């Protein structure tokens, strides 16, 4: 593989690393921050399941991103990834929980605008629609789970210590599911733009098992996410666990579960096919934001408790961030593409 290809792929790996560092905190943040689960345990489980989710169920959302804008040159994909990574970094520095999903969509639109390619408005509307739906569904699910769990706990009268043990196990399971869903739903953000121009070839093992070039890309992206989890997520997890979400471990489990289900719903080809087979509208397979899902889940529980605990000014600030991020990413993508084409003489579009 040429050195330039490796350098361009680094853009995606950088984005994968930042996804691992930031979004893993949504999955295990509260559990680790409140010391219910050790960081080492969380990091290992998270890494394994992110990679599994990416390889096994990562295709659906990638196709949708491909429909939004098919970046056909490696320097273009590199520019999109760097733009997405930078915009996430800028917003995170401002203290807003944003996600790579919105950034990569903004960056792809930036590429479309720069290269004069048309943006599939239908797909864009579907993606934007899911971004609105994602926190709402997460909020509704966490409300439902909260009521069920509260009633169950009141009837079960578990000893505080036994409840603690069960909550740890539940947090680990929900975290594993969350990591799988994160990998399945968000690998498209990291590696999606490289799929049409994958530098890998299919590997056939014993004529029985085909390891496609796409799966190889997803494995690479998954590993980048895992590296992000191990190297940088600890700090973010403690921030999420201690500062951002002051919740009981049981409430944290409910939020993680709601978040994981939402991410899984928008990534599962199986569920989508099943709904279609029984003549129900299928769920669009779209990369959604894990931060939005978590914030939706937290607000859901807050509303159920009367809404007094919800910091609406912060919620408004976060929503503003969600609107600003794709615009910022598109702008940065546009600028980087201009620099790559006009200063480095690289082809960003065929």
């Amino acid at each position, binding site marked *: 593989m040429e050195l330039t290809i490796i350098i361009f792929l680094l853009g995606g790996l950088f984005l994968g690393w930042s996804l691992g560092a930031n979004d893993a905190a949504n999955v295990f943040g509260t559990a680790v921050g409140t010391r219910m689960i050790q960081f080492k345990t969380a990091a290992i489980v998270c890494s394994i399941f992110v990679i599994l989710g990416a390889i096994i169920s990562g295709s659906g959302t990638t196709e949708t991103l491909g429909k939004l804008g098919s970046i056909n040159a490696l320097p273009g994909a590199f520019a999109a990834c760097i733009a997405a990574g930078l915009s996430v970094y800028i917003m995170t520095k401002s203290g807003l929980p944003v996600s790579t999903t919105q950034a990569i969509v903004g960056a792809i639109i930036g590429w479309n605008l720069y290269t004069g390619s048309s943006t599939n408005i239908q797909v864009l509307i579907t993606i934007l629609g899911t971004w609105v739906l994602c926190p709402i569904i997460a909020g509704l699910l966490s409300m439902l789970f909260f009521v069920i769990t509260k009633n169950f706990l009141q009837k079960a009268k578990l000893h*505080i*210590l036994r409840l*603690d043990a069960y909550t740890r196990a539940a947090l680990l399971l929900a975290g594993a599911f969350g990591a799988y869903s994160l990998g399945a739903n968000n690998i498209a953000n990291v590696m999606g733009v490289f799929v049409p121009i994958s530098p890998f070839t299919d590997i056939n093992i014993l004529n029985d098992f085909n390891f496609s070039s796409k799966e190889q890309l997803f494995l690479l992206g998954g590993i980048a996410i895992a590296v992000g989890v191990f190297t940088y997520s600890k700090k973010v997890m403690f921030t999420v666990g201690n500062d951002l979400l002051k919740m*009981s471990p049981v409430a944290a489990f409910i939020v993680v579960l709601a978040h994981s289900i939402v991410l899984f719903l928008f990534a599962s080809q199986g569920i989508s096919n099943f709904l279609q087979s029984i003549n129900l509208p299928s769920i669009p397979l779209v990369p959604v934001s894990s931060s939005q899902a978590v914030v939706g889940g937290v607000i859901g529980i807050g509303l159920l408790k009367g809404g007094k605990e919800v910091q609406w000014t912060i919620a408004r600030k976060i929503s503003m961030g969600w609107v600003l991020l794709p615009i910022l990413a598109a702008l940065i993508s546009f600028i980087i593409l201009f620099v790559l084409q006009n200063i480095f003489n690289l082809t960003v579009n065929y």
Partner: protein
Amino acid sequence: MFGLKSTSLFGETKKLEREIDEFVDILSEVGLVFKSIIPTYLSSSANGKFDEMVEQVKLMESKADKITKEVEHTLYEETLIPDARSDVLRVLEHLDEVIGMYQGNCYHFSIQKPNFPKEFHDDLIDLTETVVNCVEALCLTVRSFFRDIKSVRDNAHKVTFYEKESDIKFSSLARKIFDSNLSLDQKMHLRYFVEKIDRICDQAEDISDEIQIYAIKRSV
């Protein structure tokens, strides 16, 4: 697997549950012994039995101390209930103080041998029974804090009720003592004992107030 130590986690949990239950049992039993100790002391014919009971309280107090230390160790070593660990330990320490107060009262009776005239016997026994009932209600509050958060308020209400009863009985007895023809030094001496018994209720009420706050913190 992955450092979670699942079997030991559940094993430690069950062991700790048993230890905490045992600790509350001891608190309740010490109260029951204390309830019999005062009438035994007042019937001067049963001095041997009184000493035996004081020894019994001493043994129970040491056992409670040992359990508190073990629970403290396990909670921190296994990082169990990180969100409520400090609350649980504070409650156990304060409950241990109640056991210590029972023991202290027994020792003071044993060493200072206060001379309660017969006319005060019934009132003193009545006060002691109210104090023990108050601690019994506290035991229920503690048990509900661990298992049934919803009942904490009801049980804590009983603690408050008995504490008020105890205050009334203490004031009445103290008044009777000071209205009697005893010498001032003897009045002061008896008042000291009555006050010391009543103080157990104050401590019980403080703990039940504390538990109510912890229960609110613990709600899902």
